[in-house]
C-alpha cells in the first residue's frame, strides 16, 4: 500500500515537473514592396504595432518584404523572440518598432512580387521556432509577378498554419473585371487549404481585434 502511494506521489511530481506544451505564438508578416503596392507600405506599421501590443513573452515576430526573390533570409527586415522577462520583452518591442519605422522610411519599390517565396521562408522560420500557434500575415494585393527563372510552382506545407491576407487592394484591372480579384483570392485560398492551412482575408485595418 505504501509503495502504491509513493508511486502515485512520484508520478504526480514527475507530471508537475514535465515540460508543458508550448503556448506561444509565432507571427511572420510579409510586406509587399512591389511597385503596384508600395504606396500601401506605410499602413504596415499599424499592423506591426498592433501585433507588438498583442504579443507576449516567448512569442516570435518576424517582418519580411516581398520583392523579386523573397525566399531568402536577407528579406527579413526584423525578427524577435520576446524574452521571458517582461521588462526585456518591452525593450525588444520598442527596438522592433523603431527598426520598422526606419524600414518604412527607406523602403524602395521592387519590380516583381514573389509571394510564394515569402511564404516558403515564413514556413521555414516558424517551423524552426516551434510555436503553438503559427500565423502568416500577408500584406499584399496578392498579385504574384515572378521574374524569369524563378520556380514557385510547388505545393505548400501549411498544416497548423493560419494564413491571413491583409489589406488586399483592388488593382486597376480588377475594377474592369472583378472576377480577376475574386479569382485571385480564390486561387490563394485553394492553394493554402490544399496545403493544410487555414485562409482568412481582412481588408478593414480598423478592425483587427480578431486577428491575434
Amino acid at each position, binding site marked *: 500500500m505504501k509503495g502504491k502511494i509513493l508511486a502515485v506521489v512520484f508520478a504526480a511530481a514527475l507530471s508537475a515537473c514535465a515540460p508543458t506544451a508550448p503556448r506561444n505564438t509565432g507571427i511572420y508578416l510579409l510586406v509587399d514592396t512591389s511597385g503596384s503596392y508600395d504606396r500601401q507600405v506605410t499602413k504596415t506599421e499599424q499592423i506591426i504595432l498592433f501585433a507588438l501590443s498583442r504579443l*507576449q513573452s516567448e512569442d516570435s515576430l518576424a517582418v519580411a518584404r516581398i520583392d523579386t526573390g523573397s525566399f531568402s533570409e536577407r528579406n527579413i527586415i526584423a525578427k524577435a523572440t520576446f524574452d521571458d522577462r*517582461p521588462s526585456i520583452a518591452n525593450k525588444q518591442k520598442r527596438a522592433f518598432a523603431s527598426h520598422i519605422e526606419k524600414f518604412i522610411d527607406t523602403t524602395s519599390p521592387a519590380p516583381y512580387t514573389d509571394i510564394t517565396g515569402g511564404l516558403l521562408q515564413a514556413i521555414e522560420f516558424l517551423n524552426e521556432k516551434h510555436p503553438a500557434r503559427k500565423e502568416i500575415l500577408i500584406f499584399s494585393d496578392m498579385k504574384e509577378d515572378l521574374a524569369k527563372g524563378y520556380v514557385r510552382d510547388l505545393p505548400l506545407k501549411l498544416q497548423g498554419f493560419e494564413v491571413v491576407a491583409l489589406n488586399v487592394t483592388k488593382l486597376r484591372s480588377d475594377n474592369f473585371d472583378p472576377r480577376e480579384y475574386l479569382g485571385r483570392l480564390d486561387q490563394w485560398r485553394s492553394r493554402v487549404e490544399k496545403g493544410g492551412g487555414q485562409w482568412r482575408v481582412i481588408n478593414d485595418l480598423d478592425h483587427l481585434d480578431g486577428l491575434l
Partner: protein
Amino acid sequence: MSTTSLLGITPWPALSAILWLIFLVVALYLARRTAHQAIASVSAALANGLRLASHSVAHAEERLRGRNREVLLAQGREAKERVVEREFVRVGDAVRRDLANYPGLHRALSEAIVRIEEDHQKAVDVPPEAPGWAQAVEAVANIEARSAGTQILTDIHKSMVKAQSEAMEDYRTASAERHALLRRMMPDWRLIQETLEHVSKSVGSVVERSQVIDRHMQDYEQIVRGEDRAVAVLSSSSLVYFFVSALVLAVATAGAAINFTLIARPMAEMVGGTSVIGSFRTADIAALVIIMVEISMGLFLMESLRITRLFPVIGALPDKMRVRMIGITFVILLLMASVEAGLAYMREVLLQDELATSALLRGDDGSAAINTHQWITTAAQMGMGFILPFALVFVAIPLETFVHSLRTVVGLTGIGVLRALSLILRVSGNGTRQLGVLAERVYDLPLFVPLWIEMRLAVSAASSQPQQPVPTGEEEPAPWQEARS
C-alpha cells in the same frame, strides 16, 4: 400474448374482456391472503430495517455528542488552566513589583514615625513663662515721683521692664521653635499617607486578581465536574469563536490576496513570465510560496512567543532556544518584508515601463502618462509590501482559534446531520409500514364484489346461528372486516 389474442377467446371482445375480468378478480380473491401476507412481510421488513438504521444513527449521534462534549470540556479545561496560570503570573508579578520593596517601605515608615515622635517630644517642651510680677512693676510705676526712694524705684522699674521684655523674647523664640518642629512633621505625615495609599493599592490589586482567579476557578470546577451549564457555555463560546475567527481569517485572506497582487508581476522578472507548473504560472506560484513562507514564519514567531500553541514542540523548547528562534524568525520576516517592499517598487517600475511601451505602440508620445504624484503610489505600494508580512503574522491567533473551534463546530454539525438522518429514517420506517397497509387496501379495491358477497354470507350465517360466541377481537378478522377497516 397480445391484447387482440386475449380478446379473441370469444367471438365478442366485450364478452372476452368481461370473462378475463371475472377470471382476474377470482384469481386475486383466491390469492388475497397470501398477497396480504407478502405485502405485510415486505413492509414490515423494510420498516424494521429503517427503524434499526434509525436506532444505529441515533446511537452514533449519541456517541458523537459524548465525544464532542469531551472535546469541549477538554478544550475548556485547557483554556481555563491557561487563564488561571496567566492570572497567577500576573499576581506574582504584582507581588514582586509592589510588595518586594515592602521592607524598604516599612523602614521608611518607621523612620518617619521616629522622626515624628522626636519632633513631637521636642515640641512638648513648654516655653518659659513671662514673669508673674508684672502687677508689682505696674504699682511701682504708678508711685509718684515726689515720694521717697524715687530713684530706687525707677531703677527697679527699669530692670523689671527689661527682664520682662527678655522673658517675652525667650517665650516667642520657644514658640517659634515648636511651630517649626510641628511644620517639619508635615512631610513625614504626607510620606506616611502616601506610603499607606501605595500599599493599599497594591493589596487591593492583589485582592482583585484573587477574586478573578476565584471566578475562573469556579468555572474550572464546573468544567471538571462536567456540568451541563459549563458545556452549554463552552459550546456557545466555541460557535462565537468560530465565526469571529472565520471572519478575521477572511480579512487576512483578502490581505494576502493584495500582497499576492503586489509581488506576482515582479516575480515574473525573476522566474520568467511564461513558464508554468501544471496549469499555473511559475511566477504566481513563487509569489504564493513567498506569502505562505511569511505566514509560516509568523506562525513560528507566535509559537515561540507562546502566544499560540499549535505546535507543542516549539512551546516546550528551552527558553534560550526559544529566544533564538524568535530572533531568527523575526529576522527572516524582516528580510522578506524588505524583499516585498523591493518587489512592490519593481512592480511600479515595470508598470510604468509597460505603459510607456503601450503608449509607443499606440502611437502616443507618452507625455500624457507622466504623473507628478506617482511617488505617492510607489511609496504606498512599498509601505504595504513591507507592512503586510508583519500584519499576516497575527493570522496565527485567529487560525488557532479557528482550528480549535472547528472541531466543535464540525461535531455539532455532525450531531445535527445524524439527528436529521435518524428522524428521516424513523419517519421513512413508519411511512413504509403505512404504505404496506395502503397497498393491501389498494389490492382489495377491485375485489369489492366478492368481498361484499362474502360479507353478506357471513352476516346471514351469523343471523342463522345466534348462539355462536361473540368474536373477542384477538382472532383474525374476516376478510370483509379487514377490507372495511
